[in-house]
């Protein structure tokens, strides 16, 4: 199993032949090649992004124009979704399903698979200079659990009660569905099975990443020669390995409550005096759930922090400022991420002393986060910035993360949270971090690595159009939500007009909905760009961005085995603009002086300063 060095000419010829013999379904479907698996993650996630996005637009329509017909698709919606067939007005029950499914799909089937599955698979082996993952077959299975899990969750449509309705957090007692008889498969039951499977997929993937990073680095590559993308993915994988199983345990217990009517999370005398119920604690589930799901927030953003660091360095033509500080900041965030979960529960009935502890640990996370932001700005400072699509998205990541991070510190304080808990302020915050943060980071990564993924360049002009439309409409959509939240608009409400004090916010709701629809359709730029460039894009050179990291040593469109030359690492990943060198970059694999000048920040000489802006 271990890839020991036995390269006798016979085995070489044999393996070579073997690769050609692979039938099509081993090449494109059940492939063990990490690059193919990465593309599979990309495809399935973009598909679910479309579904989750469509659900979000339904929600927005109902909030802006409660009780009116949904345009275009309203008349063809299934009868169980609408008040009466053909009316196009969604029911409160379906609204609850929409909220649940939007959150669950976006988190478990879009952002985690893209951040961890797609980039983890694509970047790790290429950036540490190896031929594949440590355990390629395990890697294949980690992907092939995702589509069935997605189908199981979507199959909630066919159950009597429809999709799960308890929100993506799935708090009991609501999620235990005890009003249904035992052994009833409801949408909630399927939701629990589905998330369990996705969790297993993410554990299998992460176990593989940890092993690959520690065992398969190219010759000469020390841990501190790894690009920050790999560092971030590595630390994230450790978090997923340790956090996900705890959620799985909670889901298993909730499944028993839901399906067999046990009472792990059901208190005494909840529904009836029947002896089957009682003794459990609903808040206990929240503890178990957030023990995973708070780290999961960092699982969803840390990989993108790594990617953005790489993109910023490459397009500023400068080393990452404070490389080691960046690594330790990631590790610090990962560690602190495990001891802050209680800040989701200030309003759940927790000992105030415990609340204070969680409040303090949460605020402390601002320290490593600020280190990262400071270092990103330090990287940009006096750099020779090139505003490519990838760079624009990376810059958006940094700025949106600052807004989301600051509102995070604000609401981490328990007295503030009591006021804004479960309002649209929280919705604004999570979207600034998860869309403004993670998704812009994902876009940056896609624009950056697309040439290596498909061997073609993306269309830059379309990329910029996509970025500007997304960036503007994103802010128009989510920034006003802060105002809604402070105005008292609840996070999960079917018809805001039932409260007089919310009627004055109707205009903002309409505005947000129009912006959200534009935001949704702006993504067509990205989808069509990806598809169009796959066929008609310019052929990509080997190292289109003049970057230093090892993936650019691989052929234009690397095949099975990745590299066509020996890889030995001579220096750190960010040797840009080294004084006295003609080229402004110095690839890790290029033979020569073996230096590690991570701490050496090179300023652009004065005569270049005029070129700093308007480089494109």
């Amino acid at each position, binding site marked *: 199993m271990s890839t020991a*060095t036995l390269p006798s000419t016979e085995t070489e010829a044999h393996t070579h032949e073997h690769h050609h013999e692979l039938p099509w379904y081993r090449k494109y479907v059940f492939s063990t090649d990490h690059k193919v698996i990465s593309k599979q993650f990309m495809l399935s996630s973009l598909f679910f992004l479309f579904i989750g996005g469509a659900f979000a637009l339904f929600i927005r329509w109902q909030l802006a124009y409660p009780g009116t017909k949904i345009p275009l698709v309203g008349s063809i919606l299934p009868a169980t979704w609408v008040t009466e067939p053909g009316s196009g007005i969604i029911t409160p029950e379906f609204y609850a399903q929409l909220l649940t499914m939007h959150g669950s799909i976006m988190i478990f089937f879009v952002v985690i698979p893209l951040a961890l599955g797609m980039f983890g698979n694509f970047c790790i082996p290429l950036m540490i200079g190896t031929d594949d993952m440590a355990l390629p077959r395990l890697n294949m299975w980690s992907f092939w659990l995702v589509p069935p899990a997605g189908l199981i969750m979507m199959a909630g449509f066919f159950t009597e009660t429809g999709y799960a309705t308890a929100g993506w957090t799935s708090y009991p007692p609501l999620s235990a569905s005890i009003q249904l008889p035992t052994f009833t498969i409801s949408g909630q039951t399927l939701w629990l099975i589905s998330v369990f499977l996705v969790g297993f997929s993410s554990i299998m993937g992460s*176990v593989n990443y940890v092993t690959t990073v520690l*065992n398969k680095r190219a010759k000469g590559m020390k841990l501190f020669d790894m690009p920050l993308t790999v560092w971030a993915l590595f630390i994230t994988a450790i978090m997923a390995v340790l956090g*996900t199983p705890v959620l799985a345990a*909670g889901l298993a217990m909730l499944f028993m409550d839901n399906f067999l009517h046990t009472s*792990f999370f059901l208190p005494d005398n909840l529904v009836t005096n029947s002896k089957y119920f009682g003794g459990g604690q609903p808040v*206990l589930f929240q503890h*178990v759930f957030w023990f995973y799901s708070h780290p999961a927030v960092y699982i969803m953003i840390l990989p993108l922090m790594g990617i953005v660091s790489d993109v910023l360095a490459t397009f500023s033509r400068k080393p990452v400022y404070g490389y080691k500080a960046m690594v330790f900041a990631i590790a610090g965030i990962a560690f602190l991420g495990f001891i802050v979960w209680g800040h989701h529960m200030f309003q759940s009935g927790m000992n105030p002393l415990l609340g204070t502890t969680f409040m303090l640990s949460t605020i402390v996370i601002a320290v490593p986060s600020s280190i990262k932001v400071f270092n990103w700005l330090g990287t940009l400072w006096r750099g020779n910035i090139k505003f490519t699509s990838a760079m624009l998205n990376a810059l958006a990541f940094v700025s949106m993360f600052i807004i989301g991070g600051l509102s995070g510190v604000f609401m981490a304080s328990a007295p503030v949270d009591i006021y804004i808990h479960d309002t649209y302020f929280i919705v604004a915050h999570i979207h600034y971090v998860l869309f403004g943060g993670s998704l812009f980071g994902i876009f940056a990564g896609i624009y950056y690595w697309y040439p290596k993924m498909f061997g073609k360049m993306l269309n830059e002009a379309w990329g910029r159009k996509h970025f500007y439309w997304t960036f503007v409409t994103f802010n128009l959509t989510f920034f006003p939500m802060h105002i809604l939240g402070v105005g008292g608009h609840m996070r999960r409400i079917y018809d805001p007009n039932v409260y007089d004090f919310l009627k004055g916010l109707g205009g903002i709701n309409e505005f947000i909905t129009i912006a959200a629809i534009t935001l949704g359709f702006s993504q067509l730029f990205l989808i069509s760009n990806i598809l169009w460039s796959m066929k008609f894009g310019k052929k990509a050179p080997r190292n289109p961005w003049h970057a230093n990291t090892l993936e650019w040593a691989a052929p234009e469109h690397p095949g099975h085995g990745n590299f066509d030359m020996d890889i030995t690492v001579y220096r750190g990943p960010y040797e840009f603009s080294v004084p006295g060198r003609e080229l402004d970059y110095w690839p890790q694999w290029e033979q020569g002086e073996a230096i590690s000048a991570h701490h050496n920040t090179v300023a652009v000489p004065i005569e270049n300063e005029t070129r700093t802006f308007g480089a494109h």
Partner: protein
Amino acid sequence: MSSALNLSHEPVTRVRHGKFAMWAFLASELMFFAGFFGTFIVLRNTNYAAFGEGSAQLSWPLALVNTFILIGSSLTMAMCIYHLERGNNKLFRLFMGLTIMGGFGFLIVKYLEYSSKWEHGLFPGQEHHTLFFSFYFLMTGFHALHVVGGMIPMAYMFFRSYTKRGYKHPGKVETLGLYWHFVDLMWIFIFPALYLMIPYAVAGAGAHH
């Protein structure tokens, strides 16, 4: 094509990929059971007497037998690795067979226990079911699933040892052994937590087994 390049080298940590990944996976497994134990601790403290009564209804002698079976099978597993590393396919097969039998023995005893619980109406949905028994079936059930999960690759290795070449991968057996010892270790925690931690007040009154 890569095998000619310097990319495929010895694992940097000198630990085989499979073994390394297994350790990482076991860390994950540990957190999985930690989730169960964590909720168990909390709910036991708030339902102290009820948990004691439930615990007193379990049959600790049967569980003790199972403990010895499982520890024994861990020993035979270690013997498997020992003999396969020395190329002794016959003794490997013998000890692998014994390990599989240990797994079966464990499951048979578990079946006896479960069927008596069924007769006493202690399953979820039956009339005497309590929160303690929810934990009992949850933890022993997942543990039994882990036992089954270990026995499947064991059976594969066992039958492969009958082929002409025999089974030739001591590394894989070692990796499986790690997993098997972990399953054993989890039982060592589950056994006292469920069967033995009976408060004195309850033990005298409720033990009718």
